[in-house]
């Protein structure tokens, strides 16, 4: 693959109440961002099972975004965002042990009014992932 043409694929797990609504607002406000992300709606960022992240990476995602409500008190379910946060921090360590750059997993607090922030996060992720290059698991698969 030509490094210059690499278009990273991102899976975004966004909570229904804040981050998903923020992504909607980006659209309503016509804020443009790269089309590399596929959004999967969940009710709460706390629903994101580490398995989802690992499966996404295993299936070739170059990056995973978890979007939730701002701590401490925005979470519709009181503390789901904290639970997601804790899991993410732990998961990043696990990823590093597997030889996957922890930067491929990102957790962000995006409120329903932060369309601009959502767009910015996607832009940043795409740029960073372009620098990181494709998901190493994908290369291993291809080598087989």
């Amino acid at each position: 693959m030509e490094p210059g043409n690499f278009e990273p694929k991102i899976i975004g797990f966004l909570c229904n109440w804040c981050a998903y609504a923020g992504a909607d607002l980006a659209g309503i406000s016509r804020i443009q961002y790269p089309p590399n992300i596929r959004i999967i709606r969940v009710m709460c960022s706390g629903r994101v099972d580490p398995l989802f992240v690992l499966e996404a990476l295993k299936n070739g995602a170059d990056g995973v975004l978890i979007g939730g409500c701002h701590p401490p008190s925005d979470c519709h379910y009181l503390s789901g965002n904290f639970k997601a946060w804790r899991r993410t921090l732990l998961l990043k360590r696990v990823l590093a042990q597997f030889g996957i750059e922890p930067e491929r997993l990102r957790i962000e607090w995006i409120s329903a009014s932060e369309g601009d922030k959502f767009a910015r996060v996607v832009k940043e992720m795409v740029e960073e992932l372009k620098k990181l290059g494709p998901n190493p698991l994908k290369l291993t698969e291809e080598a087989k």
Partner: protein
Amino acid sequence: MTNMEKNVHSSVLVVGGGIAGIQASLELADLGHKVYLLDESTSIGGSMAQLDKIFPINDCSICTLMDKLTQVSQHPNIKVLTNAEIEGLQGEAGDFEVTVLRRARYVDEEKCNGCGACVEKCPVEVPDEFNMRLSKRKSIYIKYPQAFPVTYAIDMNSCTKCGACVEVCEYDAINLNETEKRLTLKVSSIVLALGFSPFDPKLKTEYGYGRFPNVVNSLEFERILSDYGPYNGTLLRPYDQRIPRKIAFIQCVGSRDAQLGNIYCSSVCCMYAIKEAIAAKERDPTVQCTIFYMDIRTSGKDYELYYEQAKKKYGVRFVRSRVASVDEAPDTHNLLLKYVVDEEPRTEEFDLVVLSTGMCPPKNVERLAKILGINLNKYGFCMTKTFSPIETSKPGIFVCGAFARPKDIPETVTQASGVVIKTARINTSESCKQAPVQPQVERDLSQEEPRIGVFLCHCGVNISNVVNMNELAEYAGKLPNVVLVEHFLYACSRHSRNKIAEKIREQGLNRIVIGGCTPRTHEDLFLEVMQEAGLNVYLLEIANLREQCAWTHLEQPEKATEKAKSLVQLAVAKAKLLTPVLKPAVDVIPTALVVGGGLAGMTAALELANQGFEVHLVEKSGELGGHLRNIHYVLGEENPQEELKHIISKVSSSPNIHVYLNSEVVAISGHVGNFQTLLKHKDGAKEIRHGVVILATGALEYNPTEYLYGQSSKVITQRELEQKLAKGEFNAKSVVMIQCVGARTNDNPNCSRICCGHSVKNALKIKELSPETEVYVFYKDIRTFGFYEDYYRKASEKGVTFICYEDEHKPSVSLEHGELKVVAWEPVVKQWFSLQPDLVVLNAATVANTDNRNFAEMLGIPLTQDGFFLETKMELSHVDTPRAGVFICGLAHSPKFIEETITQAYAAAAHAAEILSKSRLEIEGTVAVINEDLCSGCRICENLCEYGAIKMREENERLVAYVVEALCKSCGVCGAACPTNAINLNYFTTEQILAQIKAALVE
């Protein structure tokens, strides 16, 4: 999910489409009333739509409001009448006939679907009032992007009738010759939620508003801060659109101002100025914000913490001074503020000045009051009484929100709920029971393979201008299990939805994918289609092609088309695995438990009893009445002891209320609809079963350790003073009152809200009984918000001396030869001085009832740091807790006045009645499901669940978890943590999400 058409008992007219009117309408409609929601403007939403954030949580205002707008738009019992005003009223309570004038909109609401093609063609630009004229809009316009109805309107004052919009409209929705219409509504009651009009700061000529471009009012500043405002959320000043470095906020513009006649305090400006200052600081921490004030009135629940945070965390500067004048530096357009601090005149330069403008009565309200036959108070707001805070002077007409008194959003929403219980009573004479939830007749799919229908929406040109819809349709048609792909110009239109239902039946579709706009706003519309077509509502999936694709990749049509294909593929992958979910329903015992026999508890109990529900009213002490027993006067005409007697006699004589005195709640278990409670009283124990709980446990008076309290009989609390006054035992010639004893301290940082009013009330009483008695009040800030300000002014006029003290200059009380001596700081002359009063009266704080902790533990509900019950959403209703079926009211929630307590008790009763009126309560189907075979009994999920929805039981001698569906809120936190993957979440199952992941990553 969707609201099925409910039994309509009777009709209610709600006047005013702001948050108060919207809230009242939604709750009335949920209780089965037909609601007409009338607004004079082109859209509902009111002032809240213009706000950037809402305090005290700083949530986005429009997001909170949008949720409500969507509910209104989809509620079958609500009819929204915009561009409308009342012209006449006939009849009486229970049988009103209202004449309504609907001014022409020139755009047909039935035909217009908000595509906006007309706006592009319209050649006329005018200042946009919604953005406070800081930006432009066209002659044909929609008030704000999220507005409801999603219908354009023409402003004929600027329209040139060129006809460009008529030509471009594909729906033939525009009629430039439309005329006004009149209609007659038959309603049984009327709710006035007229809101307020902002004070016109041009009247304060010394502040230069209207002359200096960088002097703005608070609503303009809200628009400047707003993400969808004139500067897209960038903090800029109007003149040169530079970032202001120094911002001054001037408080009380048009409030507490005898010269202008607005003597009252607008109650909300201190909080919103602090909020705006914080918002400015959050945009850019280097911006300096200064708030010029007379008294900071942050007396709401935890508002004092908000104020402290502004000072300490954000570095907002507070200056106690009335700004004398604002001048403009001609070269920079900066502003020079003249003010006096410490008797010293100063001039300070700012880049931007925000005037915290007060609330005035709604425009033209005198005319409406005349038509309706209601009385206004001397300021032009609706006249109400302390013990009937939501009733107007005319039976059958009720009031809520700022029109009753300037108030903030949480109080407004609470009052709007409160109105419902009163309105519902008049309307439901025959029965307050609703029809039981009808079981849906759904097709049995157990033997069917997934047959997926994909319906793609062009959304006019919104999606199809970017995404190649033919290519997308072709792609979708090849996806596994897809048997039908159809296009619609607008899938959401009534016509298209009928067509979808028809296709479902005709083609035997059993899973539906819509490719269109966001499910957050349009899902409910399509769920209705599912029901109509006999499909379970959980067999629908929406691919978000508009907000999350077409609109964000406008310049990349090819890539957007690829993404759209992928999004549809994701949706199809999930749809294939969707299974019908039956909404669980719980039986509701139509009985309430009310804990606490004070004013709040008795009021809530009476309202529920009046609706025909059985109530168990539990009081710890030996008699009913609570704190009201100690209150002998109010700031107003009424006699509280007479009122109390009246209320107690009503409670005692109500056949529906069982009063338990000297009784305590020992245990509560169960869930909404079915709680079991164990009561203990001196004769033994009793178990009661009930559907809801209302906690009205009251609060306690702080027992002072300061100022020699308890050491001298001449140092008493304000409550004790009131007893003396009432019993005729008062004979002091000189009285010192000290405010904030045990409140606004390091140990108890919050303000007790009621004490300033309490002091003013008793000071006036002293002056009435003994005019020659000297009264000194030492205060930090006088917080006589709203119309109480009038009494503060009267007290000053009667010679009560108010002296401000800061923490470093607290007054001290000593005894010298048996005589009291108070040494205090005179802040103007900056000297200590002493007084020899006969009596020192301490305004002891109102602190939380220590029992609250037991209830919090039994019910799993949170408390504030200072031990009051914490509601779910502090920025909205005050009565709901995270535990379904458990409500709070009165002092148990936070310190409050009598009328506020009554209002909140009404609101709690209304929310309780909403549940009790259903024989079975349907709950969301998206609940956690546990596979007992896989469960290892590790209890991780049980500990993680915030709602206590996961419980453990013994099953074949091993411990397994199970879900109490009535408590589950669908977050899915448990499923994500289960080490054996034993937990799934309906409609968001692990398998479905994994399928979405795989579909998203297909090369």
